[in-house]
């Protein structure tokens, strides 16, 4: 069995001129940095008063709204907002609701009244529906849902009241940081390379083979267990490695960036994408194309 070896090498620091212009406006701080000594400001999240100097308690960017100063951290657990698309895993089945783990500080809640009944009926949930909860979603199942509201303690309330949300079938789940996923109009994309992607705002990205034809009555209930073809699997594996490469270099994830990265990685073998040198090449090319695309 051949074992591959590499010697440690110096990493080149990639910094494009285009990104430099954005850097100057941002006020980045680390925990312990003094933001201001002016006492006229109100302190928001991520700050504390240290002998009447406003100091940052997290590493991130300083945001100022009139008299309120807060620090938005770069790496944080997912803070939900109404309307976000999230992907989560069921951890508990309770009375009339499911607890979903979504990479946030508290487990999110999916109420029984917020899911579609099989067959698309519209009626009040009965006791029988409660007993049949486990037939629909069990512990360990993956779902895609939308944030309906936020409880006072910060827990999210999810709903799957649309045909595009529901239980997820065969595919690959990739964990990235929530701050890397770009907020867009739609988070469900059918990529032209032959796979589909759901970019959850909470940092969970789901890759799955594009479904053949849309089953209207199925809604979120039917998960196809047919074997996925080898070509689809290769596309999904390549996409997964590209996502990890993009996340390692902190490139904002959205459909265009994922697609460009996929195309830039085509000359490489799938397993080589995760090697640091090759990752840098691919990301450089992706970044250049993105800059041209915007400009």
């Amino acid at each position, binding site marked *: *069995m051949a074992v591959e070896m590499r010697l440690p090498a110096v990493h080149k620091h990639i910094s494009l001129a285009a990104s430099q212009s954005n850097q100057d406006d941002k006020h980045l701080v680390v925990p312990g940095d003094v933001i201001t000594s002016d006492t006229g400001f109100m302190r928001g999240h991520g700050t504390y008063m240290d002998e009447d100097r406003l100091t940052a308690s997290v590493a991130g960017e300083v945001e100022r709204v009139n008299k309120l100063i807060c620090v938005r951290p770069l790496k944080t657990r997912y803070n939900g907002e109404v309307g976000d698309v999230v992907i989560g895993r069921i951890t508990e089945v309770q009375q009339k609701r499911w607890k979903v*783990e979504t990479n946030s500080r508290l487990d999110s809640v999916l109420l029984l009244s917020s899911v579609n009944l099989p067959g698309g009926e519209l009626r009040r949930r009965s006791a029988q529906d409660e007993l049949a909860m486990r037939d629909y979603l069990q512990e*360990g199942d993956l779902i895609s849902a939308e944030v309906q509201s936020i409880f006072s303690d910060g827990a999210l309330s999810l709903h799957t009241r649309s045909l595009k949300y529901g239980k997820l079938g065969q595919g690959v789940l990739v964990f990235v940081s929530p701050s890397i996923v770009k907020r867009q109009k739609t988070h469900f994309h059918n990529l032209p390379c032959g796979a589909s992607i759901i970019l959850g705002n909470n940092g969970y990205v789901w890759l799955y083979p594009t479904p053949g034809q849309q089953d209207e009555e199925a809604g979120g209930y039917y998960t196809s267990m047919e074997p996925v073809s080898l070509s689809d699997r290769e596309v999904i594996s390549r996409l997964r490695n590209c996502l990890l490469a993009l996340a390692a270099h902190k490139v904002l994830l959205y459909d265009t960036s994922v697609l460009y990265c996929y195309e830039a990685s085509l000359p490489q073998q799938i397993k080589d994408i995760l090697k640091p040198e090759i990752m840098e090449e691919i990301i450089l090319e992706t970044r250049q194309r993105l800059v041209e695309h915007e400009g």
Partner: protein
Amino acid sequence: MRDIPLSNCERRFLLKAIEEKKRLDGRQTYDYRNIKITFGTDYGCCIVELGRTRVLCQVSCELVPPKDSRPTEGIMFFNLELSPMASPAFEPNRQSELLVMLNRQLERCLRNSKCIDTESLCVVSGEKVWQIRVDVHVLNHDGNLMDAASIAAISALSHFRRPDVAIQGRDITVFSPEERDPIPLSIYHMPICVSFAFFLQGSYLLVDPCEREERVKDGLLVIAMNKHREICSIQSSGGIMLLKDQVLRCSKIASVKVSEITELINKALENDRKIRKEGGKFGFAESMPKERITTLKRDEAPVEMTDVKETANEIVNRTETPTEAVSSPVLVAMGTAQVGEGIVNSWGLDEDEEDEPQTEDTKTDEVLVISDSEEEEVVILNEEAQKSTKPSKQK
């Protein structure tokens, strides 16, 4: 902060692998991970590494009044703590089920088995006895905390030395370690816990489960035994039903493992004692491997070596023979060729001859032109055949 829940496919993969008698790290069903026992500079401080699970144990003593029901016996106090350092799933100051189970099992294993002679801890009957306090801290959780904790506790107790006391009537003089050598505790036997994890309703069992295996287990059987084949305690949790012969088989396996581990502990104690007597350096700092920046060291990873020779021969036969480097005239362009490199003009040594670096390496596609020409650039005619023009090295 809870751990990320295990995905369904990972769970299925682990169970399927166990059905096929394969483990994630390549061990056999009854194999333990590498156990490493190190002692600190103080007596009674011990760190045990079971694979990646690390547990620290510290033993200390104090003179206290004895319990009313047992005025002639010393007191043993056990405390096990799970700090968030061990795993993100552990929260500080939270009384979880795992914590209670570990504490109870440790107490049962060490106190109820009467491995320490508590009568010898009595100083003045009814007034002063030694209270031995055993604190176990989990530094890293990678499965099987119970075994690691019990090994650490008994090693630390064997390593510990209590101060010497002299009694004159009702006066007690406690001597410091400098005045009189401290005395070891009198330990009758060494009880050690061996954990068995059961999967798929008790059909498969594994010894020393790692953290992933523990997550998918159905039940756990912990047998505390000493090397004289005496069972000190048995505990079964998880609600699985075990057959009589399964339990007997486990106890046989446990006796083998316990004798190996006891020998390991005794060897480690003996090493430490020898080093201390010779006056060498001892303690945790000495037992840690030196991390030098210039060397790269990783743990040996077992690699499957079957058919290595055949595959190597195959690869060698399949590759082509490397092309030989032939020094031939380099065809620069049509009608222009260069044979060899030529040597630098050694006439007329000028001041700037010293800073002319002589680059000897020429590749066959790059043309190193050394000429006396006064021109800045040597251009070869017939440029379509020429790949690149190189500025000449001026003499």
